[in-house]
């Protein structure tokens, strides 16, 4: 199976530190997740998640401070509403809601982080890669079949000439 693409949006103050802790404590965890550090889950524009899916992510994980612990007092409260709405909208967009997970991990919860990542990765592994996103693209117009929007199918010939 082709490698899964998993994206994690982590808040700087809790979950990123928690992930760091899991790493320094050498806790065993799967390596598919690619982590993007953000100042706060309140910064997580739902479009970031949708764009990730649209660009071929098979799963997206968002993790921040526990409610009440936000470094900016209330960022995660706003995030909680937005992401709840997003997760309920995913089926309408054609994305299985299980591919998106939203949770809280504090800076001291290295073990919990390792657990979250492991479970999430296993779940997406069981679901497999997201199908249909690329194959579903109907044939492009006569002349733009050269792969606009389909980065992996570039077929143009290389025409570099020596200097």
């Amino acid at each position, binding site marked *: 199976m082709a490698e899964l693409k998993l994206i994690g949006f982590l808040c700087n103050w809790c979950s990123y530190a928690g992930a760091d802790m899991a790493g320094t404590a050498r806790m065993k965890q799967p390596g598919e997740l690619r982590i993007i550090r953000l100042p706060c889950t309140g910064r997580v524009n739902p479009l970031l998640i949708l764009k990730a899916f649209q660009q071929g992510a098979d799963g997206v994980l968002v993790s921040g401070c526990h409610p009440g612990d936000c470094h900016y007092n209330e960022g995660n409260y706003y995030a909680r509403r937005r992401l709840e709405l997003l997760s309920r909208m995913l089926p309408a967009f054609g994305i299985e809601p299980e591919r998106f997970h939203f949770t809280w991990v504090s800076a001291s919860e290295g073990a919990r982080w390792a657990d979250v990542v492991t479970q999430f990765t296993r779940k997406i592994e069981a679901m497999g890669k997201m199908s249909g996103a690329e194959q579903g693209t109907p044939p492009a117009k*006569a*002349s733009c079949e*050269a792969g606009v929007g389909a980065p992996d199918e*570039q*077929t143009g010939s*290389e025409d*570099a000439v*020596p200097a």
Partner: protein
Amino acid sequence: MKFLAGENIAELLERLSSRSEVWAPRELRGSGGTVMFERWRSGDPLDLEHFASISAKDMVLPRTEKLFGFSYAFGGAAVGNPFGTPAEPAAGTPAEPAAGARTAGESIRITAAEPAGNVVLFGARACDAKALDVLDALFGQTEGKGYNDPQYRARRAGLTVITLACLTSDPACFCSSFENGTAEKAGSDLILYPVDGGFLAEAVTPKGESIIESGVNSRDKDDSAREPGDGDPETGEAASGPTLFEESGLEMPVLAVTAMVEGLEGLRQKLAAIFDDLEFWQAETEKCISCGYCTYACPTCHCFNIHDEMRGDREGERLRSWDACMFHLYTQETSGHNPRPTLAHRYRNRINHKFSYYPENQGEILCTGCGRCIRGCPVGLDIRDVLRQAVEASAGPGEGGDR
């Protein structure tokens, strides 16, 4: 005149699609009845009754086309010629290395766009075909004479247009306002005139003739005893292959005459007279919501934008995409200044480009009266009303009527 039985259309498309891509109008699923020109594949349905919502211009000017791809690379490779024609990709014209080189030892690799293949456009109307002729006046200019667009020319050369003549029209049609109206032949290679049981076929160009030729000669020649309209589409399967075009003494049908816009003679001067009358243009565009439908559906509107679409920061593509003069961003300058800041300015330019500038520069009116911009406008704006009122307004104050 040759006769093509209605039930043999699919067989004709089948034969054509073995050599070319075939594009034909079809109603799209889940679209509330939208008809568009779509890639035809064996067994696909056709809709020859309704008018396609979007013109067929993307056969020659696609909504998006790749001009070339590029990537930065280390090593001895240098720059290919981005403006080489697709036929002779980057034929060695080495550009100055400094032009694109980012750092020492780094150079740009250019990937040519895919060459255009052969396309048959089936079921265009006279207005769609004429529009190609109108576009040719600009994009078809040969190399060395002004504008040079090899990608357009390659597509145009590979395009065969089979036009369906109009025996009926609807109230949005106004092609009869221009020279030949529904009888226009420019841009078509083969014209099909609907008659009882099928179509009379008239070849306009050698390309059209060759379609009739191949339809007469291919496969079973002895089958010519069949009467026109003697339809048995099921038995006429690929194995036996019916003769598609037969001699016929049927009379030519009467073509439709559409609504007309009067007073278009001398329109250039008339438009010039009200150029500065911004109040007029404001009144005309009051209900416009500034979307790009009219320009994108138009068979003659051809403005485009060019973007470098990066994929990461090491490679990308240069794309040409449709652009619309009704968009604010169309004339937005980097400084923030916009020479056409309001809808009135933009619509004025749209009308002038169609009926003044293009005729002056290219000798053709940039409108064929297809009426798409009228039928599909979300707010019911009618370009004919604007023209009529422009004609009235230019006649002088006091006669401009209620606006």
